[in-house]
């Protein structure tokens, strides 16, 4: 992160472990990082290294064992479940590996879903949804159900759903993991555009080095410890 830039995500001494019966399995230990506004960060690491766990903690869908996570100056580790849910609806856009669209809702309705929790009028919601679908170039497929779309198109709908509330950060967990090469390229292009043109802060977990190279910076997570990619500027 450039020194003059205020971090949008500030993580300090975060640890997380899981229980398996009587055993405690540490996943993250004493993690501290800053992520700047408008950053496009790729988190890499082997399976079980804790990268998805870290992403979940940043997105407020899991709880830390210790440490603090501030997003936009707000410490989300102090929030109750209800506060956290409300915060997520306003500040976080999610992109998942398996798209996770609701199969009985059309593309339009899937994108509209997060707006249900906002106070926008019907007209405003419609405007937001159409804009988001236009950004992902799927305006003409808005009445299609997920099963009528290709994997790449479903992921673009998921991206539209992630950006429709204009969130503070977008978190993406293996967004190209279930796509063919061409669709993966399209999705990464789209995420790149969102970052460069709309200054969206994106944190992406990936196994794929080609996907990671599209990010502005890469962090490696191994055995719960973060390290910088050799060819990236260290924080």
């Amino acid at each position, binding site marked *: 992160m450039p020194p003059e830039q205020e971090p949008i995500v500030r993580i300090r001494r975060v640890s997380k472990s899981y229980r398996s019966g009587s055993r405690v399995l540490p996943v993250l230990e004493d993690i501290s990082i800053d992520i700047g506004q408008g950053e496009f960060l790729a988190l890499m690491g082997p399976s079980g290294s804790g990268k998805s766990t870290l992403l979940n903690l940043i997105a407020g*869908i*899991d709880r830390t064992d210790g440490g603090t996570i501030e997003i936009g100056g707000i410490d989300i580790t102090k929030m109750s479940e209800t506060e956290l*849910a409300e915060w997520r609806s306003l500040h976080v856009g*999610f992109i*998942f590996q398996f798209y996770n669209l609701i199969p*009985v*809702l059309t593309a339009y309705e899937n994108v509209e*879903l997060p707006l249900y929790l906002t106070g926008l009028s019907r007209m405003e919601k419609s405007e937001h949804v159409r804009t988001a679908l236009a950004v992902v170039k799927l305006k003409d497929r808005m009445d299609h159900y997920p099963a009528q779309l290709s994997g790449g198109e479903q992921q673009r709908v998921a991206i539209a759903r992630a950006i429709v509330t204009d969130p503070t950060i977008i978190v993406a967990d293996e967004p190209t993991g279930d796509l063919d090469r061409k669709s993966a390229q399209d999705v990464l292009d789209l995420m790149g555009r969102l970052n460069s043109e709309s200054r969206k802060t994106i944190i992406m977990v990936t196994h794929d080095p080609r996907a990671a190279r599209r990010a502005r910076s890469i962090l490696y997570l191994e055995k719960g410890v973060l390290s910088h990619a050799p060819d990236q500027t260290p924080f």
Partner: protein
Amino acid sequence: MLLIRLLFKNAFLRHKLRSVLTVLGVTIAILAFGLLRTVITTWYLGVETSSPTRLVTRNNVSIIFPLPLSYREKIRQVEGVKIVSYGSWFGGVYKDKKNFFANFAVEPRTYLELYPEFIVPPDDKEAFLRDRRGFIAGKKLADRFGWKKGDIVTLEGTIYPGKWDFILRGIYRGRDLNIDETQFFFHWDYLNESVLKSKISLSDQVGFYMIGISSPGISAQVSQEIDAMFKNSAAETITETEKAFVQGFIAMSEAIIVAIQLVSLVVILIIMAVVANTMAMTTRERTGEYSILKTLGFGGGVIALLIMGESLLVTLSGCILGIALTYPIAGAFGTYLGTYFPVFNVENETVLLDFIAAVLVAFAAAVIPVRNALKLRVAEGLRRIG
């Protein structure tokens, strides 16, 4: 609106076959429940339609033993008694034993006065009262056998042997749907005259007295006075309200009623099992989706509403269909089983019970799925999708 659309789509579009089968299961269960409840209400209909100002006096030993006609004047003199009528169970058979219907020899003028719920057109009533061989029949009974006014109807006597010819002089209607329209009333005098000729020991004997009193409050006192009057006589009496008299009959079949009530409860439990099974499968399959909704910021309340709403929607759909089918099927029941159930109408109370049962089942079936969905941690749910 979006959530309502999602609710409907979840309920009916996800697994169409499963939805159809579940709705069908609830429909059949509600239909069975409604019919069983209707049997129970029909059973108690006599109690419901009995008047608190009518008393029944019968032989203290048993209803099959008669009472002397001479009691009439004595009963009439008891304070509070307004009107005294009487009659006998005739037990006649029309053509075949399976054509069973209730037939009574009654003193017609007082009997019709005591039972204003039997609506007889004035001309028919006059014609009936004038003709000793005349009879009146309920509309359903007349329709069942295609009788027209003026037709001669022959009954084969079982208690009073021989063939008895009667002329249909009038058709009565019930004041409301719960009044039995399958009865046959003729002149007690006609019976008595014939008995006088053939079996003199049965003449001037009646099966029961029906007594109209001035107010319900004096029923106990009047009953006691009447019974005291005939104490230590050759034919002691027992007098009770019409309601108690009918309840006495029903008590003989109490075990059947209890069994039917238990079966109707079992039916409700079966619906609950069907809906609970569907809801359990549904929520298990949608664990990932609930996690997504939670991830997007939807609270537990919305998730609970989606599950409860779906359970309610499926159950109420089946309930409405079941109720809609109950009416024609109860009608068909009434037609084919008119011998046993002269009145077989679906009461509003039964429909209300159907709805209450459906709502209770919907909520009970959704309780555990809702609890599981609320307990679900988002990160854990998302891992299950992966």
